[in-house]
Every structure is written in C-alpha cells, then in structure tokens.
C-alpha cells in the first residue's frame, strides 16, 4: 500500500511541473505578425487637399486625399518629401444628433508610399461642435414646464469638418514589422 502511495505521489510531483510549463509555454510560442517592442516613432504631418464636412458626406469606405506637410526624416535620412499625396479611407461617420450631439468622422488606412500600414498608428478622429454642455442644463431647467424641455431635441450638434489649413499628425514606427 505504502509503495503504491509513494509511486502515486512521485508521479504527481513529476508530471505537474511539466503540465504547468507546457500550458504556460503554449501562450508564448504563438508566432505574431506584429512586435511593438520599439518605441521610436516619427510624426507625419498631413493636411487634406480639399475641405471635407459631414454636411456633404461621402459614403463610408470612400477615399479622402491628403498631402504631407513637412519632409519626414528617419534617423536623419529623408524618407518622404513635403507635398507627397497620401490617400486615406473615411472609415466611419457618426451623424450629428439631437440635444447637441456632435457629428464625428474616423479616418484611417493612410496609404503612404514605401510605408506599411502595420507600421503606422493612424486612426484619426474629428468631431463637430459639442453643444451638449449647454443644451442639457437648458433641457433640465425647462423640464418643469410641460413639453418645453423636449424642444431642445431640435438642437443638433455641429458637423465634423476638416479644412485644408488643419494639420493632422499620424505616427510612423519604422522598427515595427
């Protein structure tokens, strides 16, 4: 009996570390197509070539055109010149809503020559004027008068727009995969 117990205890002691090690290793052995170790980044300043507003929207997935504002250097080597055209995708539009909710656009997928999209931190969001700050207090102040508080539903938030004078910055991580 004692012999059986010894064998059982030895087996448990022998196998547990192996099982634990295997499950721990399985989480680290998966190959990835990304590696975020490097913190070295280069800002790329862009401006849109034509004014864009959610007042006259395009369909989501449509293209917007930007140009590079300043020359871009990586370790003192120039990799992009000012004026280079960059296409980007209009990802999402959130239309402006009742009670002062602003419109919002999300732009991503910047196609920069010689740079992989996986090396860019590139989601850019632009919002319209947020009128909720004053519309909600007004709504609550008017609520005691029947139906009047609901009138603030008619106040819409501002349109999201990007003008040619706006400079937007995305970041290029040259050491990323």
């Amino acid at each position, binding site marked *: 009996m004692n012999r059986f117990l010894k064998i059982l205890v030895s087996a448990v002691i022998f196998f547990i570390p192996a099982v634990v090690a295997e499950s721990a290793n399985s989480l680290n052995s998966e190959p990835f197509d990304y590696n975020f170790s490097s913190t070295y980044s280069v800002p790329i300043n862009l401006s849109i070539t034509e004014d864009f507003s959610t007042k006259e929207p*395009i369909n989501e*997935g449509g293209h917007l055109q930007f140009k590079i504002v300043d020359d871009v250097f990586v370790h003192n080597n120039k990799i992009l010149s000012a004026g280079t055209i960059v296409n980007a*995708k209009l*990802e*999402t539009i*959130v239309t402006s*809503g009742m009670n002062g909710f602003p419109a919002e656009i*999300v732009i991503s997928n910047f196609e920069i020559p010689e740079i992989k999209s996986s090396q860019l931190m590139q989601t850019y969001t632009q919002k319209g004027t947020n009128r*909720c700050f004053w519309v*909600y207090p007004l709504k609550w102040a008017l609520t005691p008068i029947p139906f009047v508080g609901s009138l603030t539903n008619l106040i819409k938030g501002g349109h999201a727009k990007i003008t040619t004078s706006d400079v937007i910055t995305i970041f290029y991580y040259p050491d990323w995969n």
Partner: protein
Amino acid sequence: MRLFLILAIIAILNLPVMAIDNYTLENENRIQTLIDNIGTNILNKNKIDKRIIFTYDDKHKKKLLSTDKRLSKRQIIVYKDLYKSAQTDDEVAAMLSREISTVVKSYSGIWGGRLDSIQVTLGSKKFEIAADKRAVDYMVNANYNPLSLIIFINKTCPQKRSDRFSRHNLTSKRLARIYEYITYKYPEYLADNEFLNNKYYQNFLLTSIENRKKLKEKIKYNSTEEIDYE
C-alpha cells in the same frame, strides 16, 4: 490503517462534489482563456493602445441600478447569457469587437473620456450604430469575418415593435446598417460569402428583404443619403 480507510471513504464521498467544482472551474478557465485570446488578438491587430480587460461572468446580467463597467472601468464583462449564443470564434470575436468599440469611445474626449461616456449612455441610439460599424472594422483587421456580427446580433437581440421612444435601435435597423457598411467597405466578404450555407445568415437574408431592397436603390442611384430602414 483504520484512520486511512475512514479518510479514503470521506474522500470518495466528496469526489462527485470536487469533480463538479473542478469541471466548473476548468470550464470557466477554458472560456476565459478563449475570451482573453480572441479579445487580445483584436486589440493587438487593431493597435488599440488603451487598456481593456475581459472577464467571463457565470451570472446573469443585472439590468437595474448597475454601472456600465465598460465605460467606468474599461472592463468588458461577458455574461453567460450572451456567451452561450456565440458558437464559433468569429461570433466570439463579433461579441467582443462590439464591446471593445464602446470601451474605446470611453477613452476619447475631455475629462478623461467622462463626457463621451455620458454621451454614449444618453445618446445610445446613435452610438449603438457607430459601435456596430467600428466592430466590423475591428473584426476585419483581426482577420475575422464581419458577417459573423450580423449572425450574432440576429441570434441574440430581440425585435421590439418600435424604437421611436427607445434609447435603442430596432435590431432590424442595426442589422441593415451593418450590412450596408460591409457592402460599401468590405464587399469582398459578400462577393465570396462563406456564410451562404449558414442557416442563421440565411435567416437574416430572409428577414431583411425589404431593407436590402432599399440599399439596392441607394447603390443604384449612387446616393449618399441615410436610408430610413425598417
């Protein structure tokens, strides 16, 4: 020897309880691992540089008087009720992407994202659609099929009579907007549709005929107007 026998009998009597406990624990660990794995995959592939955690909860969702932890703690709690309807990795990804898009919103804007979080809560109809759309993008970037979001919502979200006085959209409207979004942005998933033999997807097609007709009209006339879906 007698003591050993008594202990052995006690242990044997407790075995079923221990087995159930172990089974529950292992099952929860398996689900948690799957959720962590798919959730982190979505975060990394989309380069979302905000901290978000995923927690599986075996309990039912509390609806009243509970804060939304997605917006306050940036913690996505996957409740059993919802998880049980996610039958493939793509559907788990759909469920998590939808939640991630809401959490990401809570990071943007002034006061550490507090104002945006309030807006998400107050104007949830608008942000519901926006979160659905961002979820589609997250899924595509992480190599999951975005049509799974349609399948998952079609299976899990009930259809109310009207959304006129509700803070939530009719599910049929949400599905139509997701379908439209995929049609414009990721037509390749519809052209080479791997879900044509999926009965849940076919059920969506069956129940969305009128809305899809409206979308066809929009495409035909190259319109940018927002469609008034049913």
